[in-house]
């Protein structure tokens, strides 16, 4: 992971995380902060990718299992919370690892036709990094518009 170049525009920065075996990139401007996991209160009849509610900086935020969103299986051991902005709301993502801040624009393309419907709508582009699938997330699509 290459990080840090004083000439790289700020809007091109992205936070690289690992969730459910996927490497994901989230634009830094959508990221509020990273932190250690906090206690989660389960919510009945919540969507399967929502683990529950956690109070972060005095505000109850839904905790979304990013690995479940990408793989369809629950992340066993979330080691970090990443708070992101989705529109005018904030959501906490439970991820396996925060890899770092990338100052390069991630390459990639839109999902191919066969995966377009299978991959969630949160993935903006797909790429490959170090022989691993790399997903560029669109935080604006993480939560359904209400």
């Amino acid at each position, binding site marked *: 992971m290459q990080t840090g170049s004083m000439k790289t525009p700020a809007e091109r920065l992205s936070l690289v995380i690992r969730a459910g075996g996927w490497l994901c990139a989230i634009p830094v401007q959508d990221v509020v902060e990273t932190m250690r996991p906090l206690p989660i209160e389960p919510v009945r009849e919540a969507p399967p990718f929502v683990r529950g509610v956690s109070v972060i900086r005095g505000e109850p935020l839904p905790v979304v299992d990013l690995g479940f969103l990408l793989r369809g299986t629950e992340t066993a051991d979330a080691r970090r919370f990443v708070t992101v902005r989705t529109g005018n709301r904030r959501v906490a993502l439970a991820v396996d690892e925060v890899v*770092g801040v990338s100052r390069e624009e991630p390459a990639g393309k839109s999902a191919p036709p066969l995966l377009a419907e299978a991959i969630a709508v949160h993935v903006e582009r797909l790429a490959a990094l170090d022989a691993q699938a790399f997903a560029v997330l669109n935080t604006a699509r993480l939560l359904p518009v209400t």
Partner: protein
Amino acid sequence: MRRSWTIGQQLAVGFGLPILLIIGLGLFSFRTSHQQVDTARRVAHTHEVIADIVDVLSLVKDAETGQRGFIISGADEFLTPYRTAVDHVNRELTELGLLYASSPRQQARFEVLQGLVREQVLKLGDPIAVRQRDGLEVAAKLVAIGEGKRRMDEIRRITREMIDEERAALAERATEAEQAAAWHSNVVGFGTVGTIVLALLAATVVMRTLDRQIGSSVQSLQSASSELQAAATQQARGAKGQVSSSVEASATMRELVATARQIAESAQRVTLVATDNATAARAGEQTVVAARTAIETVKQQVDRIVGHMLELGRRSQDIGAIVDLINELSEQTNILAINATIEAAGAGDAGRRFAVIADEIRRLADRVGGSTKDIRSLIEEVRGAANTSVMATEDGAKAADACARQFVEMSVSFSRIAGSVESTADASREIELSTRQQSTAVEQASTAIAEVAQTARETDASAAQMLETAVQLTSLARQLAALIRRETAA
């Protein structure tokens, strides 16, 4: 019942019955003889009575004859018979009275006769006096009256009756004597014959019984003497064998004495060796005790090493805790650096220099995290090595324990060995003593066996003598059987 009678009883019965019959015959003969003597005595008494009666009658006749001669002749010499009769008639009457004392009927006749005789003698004196005084004529007239003749006839009649009765009694006694003699002859004759027959019968029965019993006894004696002869022969043979066996046993006992002495010497050497072994075992036990003390010292050192290693492990855990804290701080620093980078990106150009610092801080944090991982791995290696050392030292401690226990067991074994060796020494001493006692006993037994051999020789001689005696006894039994049963001997 008869079989249970002894020979003495049979002889007593066989001779007793004839003797009883002889005694009975003797008693009967004695009684008969006594009766005959009594009869003879009574016959003599009767003859004496008859003689007295005849004497009295004769005196009366003499008196009458003298009276008549004097009356006729007048001579005094004719009065001599008269006077003799007067002088003796009373005495004769007295004697006759005494003889009739036992017969009442004859006594009555005697009383009458006595009165008539006295009166006749008294009255015969009256004519004699008349003749002397008045002469023949007067006296003849007085006699012619006939009173004297009547008394004389009466006297004759009474004396005849008395004599007749005595004669009748005499005839009766003669008849009784003849009957008694005939009865006596019959009884003695038949008794003698019966006694002889009974004696012969008893002798036959006794002889047959004795023949049967003595014959069976003689047969038993023959068989017993034959068995005795066989036994004596066998005893003689056994005595000879006993003599030879005793001689062999004596030789064997001498060899046994020599062997017992060798055993005693060997036991003495074993005692010496066992004493040396006991000393060596005691020394080995002391060496083992010293080795056990050294092993216990080693064990204590190993325990101390184990304690140090455990302490090292605990220190490693403390270091690990510190490293965890450092790792925690580095992680937190990493998070803060990322957040600072995010915040710097949000700050635009103003935050770029801060973003660089934040990135450097994040790198430092990453390096610290990497270093802490290395330290953790090193600590883990140290802990692993410490654990391995602890396990190895614990194994060493266990080995030392086992070695100490083995030394204890070895010490116990040495003690047992020493005790066993001492017991062996004691046992060998006892064996030595017992063997010496045994050799003494065997010597005594050898002497006894020699005496037994001598006794066996004497027994042999006695058996030969007994065999000779048995042969003689057999011959004697045959002779006795020949005496008892001649047909068997034949």
